């Protein structure tokens, strides 16, 4: 693991974390060593359990993207319409560069914000109520049916963003999911990830299961291998993991 002490919530997202690796190790962004970076990324994702799990989802999505790229790197390259080989990393590189561009602008905005905070606008305005209210006849002067319709739409639209967040508490722990995975591996020697999570309806449950997987991989209880399908992988039991205790 890295010699640097890093808290994951310091990063704005998975792209930010990847950019950090690239900067720290002085990697060529056009030639990212994908195995190395995937490994490191997964290590960090493993730390996510210290964080709120809403953030974890985005990191885990990136972990699966990295794993997919890693697999594609081993396969014969796809070719574009001009016959050139397509680097499986292209999309990721473009995303990283685009993100970096806005990251720089964010710094500038932050600087502008600090400057603006030093200004105070003039305060203390007492409106002069001696002025009579305007005659109603002038209020709807020159108004067309289009204006009317437009205003209606805006009034309705302004209602939409008021989303009420309903918090549904799902009691689920990493340890529980570790048991769940091990139970599955008792029945069968190998199980695919998709199959493992196929009955799960809540995103959070899948996320926790993934973390449990990483945990088990880390302590050497299970192994992971690539499945035939690009978006899946196989989990199998390791013999020598039996002496490792799971903290409960």
């Amino acid at each position, binding site marked *: 693991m890295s010699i640097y002490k890093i808290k994951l919530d310091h990063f704005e997202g998975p792209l930010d974390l990847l950019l950090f690796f690239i900067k720290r190790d002085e990697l060529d962004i056009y030639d990212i060593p994908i195995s190395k970076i995937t490994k490191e990324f997964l290590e960090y994702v493993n730390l996510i359990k210290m964080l709120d799990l809403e953030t974890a989802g985005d990191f885990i999505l990136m972990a699966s993207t990295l794993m997919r790229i890693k697999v594609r790197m081993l396969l014969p390259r796809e070719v574009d319409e001009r016959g050139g080989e397509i680097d499986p990393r292209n999309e990721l590189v473009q995303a990283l560069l685009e993100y970096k561009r806005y990251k720089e602008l964010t710094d500038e905005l932050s600087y502008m914000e600090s400057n603006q905070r030093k200004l105070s606008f*003039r305060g203390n305005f007492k409106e002069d109520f001696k002025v009579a209210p305007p005659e109603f006849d002038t*209020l709807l002067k020159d108004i067309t049916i289009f204006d009317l319709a437009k205003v*209606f739409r805006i009034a309705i639209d302004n*209602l939409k963003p008021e989303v009420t967040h309903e918090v549904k508490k799902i009691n689920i722990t990493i340890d529980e999911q570790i048991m769940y995975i091990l139970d599955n591996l008792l029945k069968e020697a190998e199980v695919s990830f998709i199959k493992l999570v196929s009955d799960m309806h809540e995103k959070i449950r899948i996320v926790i299961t993934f973390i449990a997987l990483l945990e088990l991989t880390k302590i050497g209880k299970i192994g992971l291998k690539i499945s035939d399908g690009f978006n899946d992988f196989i989990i199998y039991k390791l013999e020598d993991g039996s002496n490792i205790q799971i903290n409960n």
Partner: protein
Amino acid sequence: MDQIYKSIIEALIFSSDDVVPAAELIKTIKGIDGDEIKITEEDIEKSVESLNSNYEQENRAFLIKKIAEGYIFATREEYANYIGFLTLEKSKRRLSQAALETLSIIAYKQPITKPELESIRGVNCDYMLSTLLDKKLINISGRSETVGRPLLYKTTKEFLKYFALNSLADMPKPREIEEIMQDEDFLEQKRKIMMNAIEEEVEKETADETSNDNEAE
């Protein structure tokens, strides 16, 4: 008292959202520069007087007024009619916006009760309803069956006449408006793209007519 405090006093009275008592000004200055700073209410008063005589000399449009609770900036009387005009324009705009919004919701959601209307607008609508009733743009069409049986409002013939509509069915659908209401730039771009497409079409047609084996690029 240091001269710099005259400017600080000016800045503080200027930016405050309320009348500032002299004691607050002193507290602030000591809070930042330390308790050992010597500054009294009399110093404040003198600074304000000095500021005001600066403003007078320089013909500024404002001055600092001392009222019971403290200090406050105010514009000079001679500009009252200009300022009145500007604020009147502003309140006019606000009112006409409110009238339009109320009327539009009634038009599209009719018949509608006051509670429903208020929940959409997020503000009390008594004044707007009575004004619109007064002008006969809306009327009462009955009572709702819901709790409290509130009155139902709908638009009138007068409303149709006002907007030169034959019937309510002629009102634009919210969906149609949605399409029109894209950003100006977006519309402009869309127009350009469409114009280009039409031009290309026209060019192609003319080219097709003259020679039939002309490859279009």
